[in-house]
């Protein structure tokens, strides 16, 4: 793990993407290195998922350049729906893009807390359970690059924290690069190495401490959002105190 930390996994250079002549994103650049967590934040419709899809090569007709230096990629899309006509269990879904041993499947499902659902039908899972399965599938193949598009949507509060901790742990353990999309500014600012604030274009970017002080960030998310970091750090100092006193959502 010594020197490898610097290896670049993904590079997006000045990417723009148009749909029906409307620019969804304009001149977005980003870079992800091994062991690094890069987070995209921004309001709805600001092009976060679009940027992720461009980075992954799902959208190909773009201006600018995308370079991926690994093929071992794990992706948790924002939305996956599985039709009833397709009978598929969690265990079938786990090895969708890669053949996995039973052990690997068990370990991954165990990590996200859903090993008991292994033989259940995918269409019978709740939203939160499904998200956990999606994350388990993406990490089971031991990817070098992990792209997580709002990975904990619909997961209960306790699970949310545990899953973010897991994501952090995985980035260290596998030394993989992570591109994370999240609305949870709280988590973003504490667990991320680099933040990119999007609103069709890159508003501001940098280390969390830098971004929260940025004027554009404040314009986009409001003044209260700047307190996120201090709130979080406060909470961090007293990690055993109740969460109830802090409400970042208001």
């Amino acid at each position: 793990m010594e020197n490898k930390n610097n290896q670049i996994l993904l590079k997006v250079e000045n990417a723009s993407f148009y749909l029906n002549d409307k620019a969804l994103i304009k001149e977005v650049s980003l870079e992800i290195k091994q062991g690094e967590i890069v987070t995209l934040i921004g309001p709805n419709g600001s092009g976060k998922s679009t940027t992720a899809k461009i980075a992954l090569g799902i959208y190909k007709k773009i201006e600018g350049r995308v370079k991926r230096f690994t093929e071992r990629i794990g992706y948790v899309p924002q939305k996956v729906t599985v039709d009833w006509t397709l009978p598929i269990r969690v265990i079938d879904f786990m090895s969708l893009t890669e053949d996995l041993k039973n052990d690997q499947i068990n370990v991954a499902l165990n990590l996200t807390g859903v090993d008991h659902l292994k033989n259940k039908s995918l269409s019978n899972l709740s939203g939160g359970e499904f998200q956990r399965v999606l994350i388990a599938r993406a990490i089971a193949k031991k990817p070098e690059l992990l792209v997580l598009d709002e990975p904990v949507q619909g997961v209960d509060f306790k699970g949310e924290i545990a899953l973010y901790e897991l994501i952090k742990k995985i980035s260290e353990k596998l030394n993989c690069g992570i591109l994370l999309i999240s609305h949870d500014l709280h988590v973003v600012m504490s667990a991320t190495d680099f933040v990119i604030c999007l609103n069709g274009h890159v508003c501001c970017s940098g280390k969390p401490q830098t971004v929260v002080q940025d004027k554009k960030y404040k314009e986009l998310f409001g003044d209260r959002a700047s307190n996120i970091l201090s709130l979080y750090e406060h909470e961090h100092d007293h990690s055993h105190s109740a969460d109830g006193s802090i409400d970042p959502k208001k």
Partner: protein
Amino acid sequence: MFDDFFTRALIAGIGISLVTGPLGCFVVWRRLSFFAGTLAHSALLGVTMALFFEINIAFSVFVISAVLAILLLQLQKKTKLPNDALLGLLAHASLAVGLVVIGFLTSIRFDVMALLFGDILAVNQNDLLVIWIGGGLILIILKLIWKPLFASTVNYELSEAEGMKPDKFNAIFTILTAALIAISIKIVGLLLITGMLIIPAATARNVSNNPKQMVIFSVIFGLISVLVGLFTSLKINSASGPSIITATLLLFILSLIKFKKVSDLKK
């Protein structure tokens, strides 16, 4: 015990149902039943072309279906019409053109009914070769591309992101479907081939809880339908293609009863 033509019919029917089973599952999963129907409709044009230029029927049908599939892809990109309208347009336009061309083929004796509904009892040894070699190839290719094709069926974006190249395998699947229609048109007919693809797979869905199981069941149901249909046709002198499809329908109804019981148990 059987007349020779009946043995040939059995061997042909069995060969077809081995291929329609797994391919039909993908057609159902990917919601392509109308697409398969469109390809089948274009087979009429394929057959008339074959007669017109005096080339092999299966080959000609295959070429026309493949051209139609490419045309559809282009139309999807260039127009804003919904998919079902485009499919309807292609299906009936190719059917109409085929029927117009038939009008010019006055010198050739031509059994339109056999083309629409199949004539399994007129299968010759050459047809058997086409079915078993062509069918074997389709199955081998399907087995080879199973993983990426299945991944792209479950979720296109996920499979694209993780390097499964869904566009490539979707195109191969389209070609396989066209090939299947080409080899089975003589047996089940162009109006009924879609039924052979979809009904056994739909029946299998009612009694399966994972993809491989559904494929196996749909092959089994296809085989049973062919056997029941052909023996019935021999016994009561009914048309063979429609008899086979009627048998698939009976199995589907039976599976609904079983399905109801299973869902009751789950409650």
